[in-house]
């Protein structure tokens, strides 16, 4: 019996992680794809990142020593996604060394040469948070918890940066209603992002 207080990470590492893996995949496939796309990868390449990240997690996670205080899982997950993205990006640039003849010396191991986060960690983390936020917004919309009209108002005012008076006029609302929509959507968005970040330790 899985306690509702267990973190997703602990459940992934448990003997019976059937549902936890399903939950993990459903939570993060969108954010991982978005992160990879932000690094310049194409749709198919981003799917490679998703697959390779999941395979790496399946390999490593059972023996991963989680230190909650140090927030290592956040770094661990982000590092894997980031490295896999760079590996696939590098592979794409070199066309995966597709022109290498059999007689050539052994190919470089993408993992071995994958760039480390290093000083770019804060940038990578910001990109990851952004991916999570975008994924959260997509979830809100796809779950139909956000009406199309509500989203259109939010999109025009918050994301589009248009004046509230103009948005209100366009949608036939009072200006105050535009502010209310913004606050309501942001609250929901914060909950959704918090859920994603809590599970990835990205707090």
């Amino acid at each position, binding site marked *: 019996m899985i306690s509702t207080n267990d973190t997703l990470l602990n459940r992934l*590492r*448990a*003997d*019976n*992680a*059937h*549902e*936890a*893996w*399903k939950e993990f*995949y*459903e939570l993060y*496939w*969108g954010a991982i*794809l978005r992160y990879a796309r932000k690094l310049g990868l194409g749709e*198919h390449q981003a*799917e*490679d990142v*998703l*697959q*390779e990240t*999941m*395979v*790496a997690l*399946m*390999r490593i996670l*059972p*023996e991963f020593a989680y230190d909650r205080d140090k927030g290592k899982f956040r770094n661990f997950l982000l590092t894997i996604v980031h490295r896999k993205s760079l590996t696939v990006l590098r*592979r794409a640039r070199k*066309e*995966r*060394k*597709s*022109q*290498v*003849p*059999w007689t*050539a010396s*052994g*190919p*470089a*191991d*993408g*993992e*071995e040469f994958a760039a480390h986060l290093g000083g770019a960690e804060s940038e990578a983390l910001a990109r990851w948070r952004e991916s999570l936020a975008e994924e959260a917004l997509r979830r809100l919309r*796809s779950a139909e918890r956000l009406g199309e009209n509500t989203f259109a108002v939010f999109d025009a005012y918050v994301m589009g940066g248009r004046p509230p008076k103009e948005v209100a006029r366009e949608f036939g609302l009072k200006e105050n209603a535009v502010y209310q929509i913004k606050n309501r959507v942001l609250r929901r968005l914060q909950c959704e992002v918090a859920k994603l970040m809590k599970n990835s330790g990205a707090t």
Partner: protein
Amino acid sequence: MKFDIEELLAALPSKEGGDPRAPQAVFQRLKFLAQAMQGAEGQEGVGLLLRWLDQKGWKSRALPADGCPVTIGRDPACEVVLAGERVSRRHCLVRAVLSGGEIVDLDSANGTLVNGSPLKAGALVLRDGDVIEVGGVPLAVVVGRGLG
């Protein structure tokens, strides 16, 4: 392994469940990989392991990391024989190297895919968790712990 990887990934969303926007091809490959990797446990001393399913169940071919190519095809003379109308007699070559593996298509009629992408001319680097498709037959590439 502490958990049953096959059981775990059998739970991944299928076409009938989960978010329909999620890439279904990746789901299917991960399910296949989960089963293949589970069967690879305990295989030691090889550089790379190929795992595929035929009518009698899971099959494996271990490749030592000596760079010697193994032929995959329909011809009984191949080291890895796959039944299938779309498999060419000599379809592709795979070899294990220290860092993983390499694959090259032998101008097969229906081509070879790696993770859904068709192979172009020349050799392609193979990594742990890649899925090769030879005439529609999927083979998992396993370069796991104890295999390197």
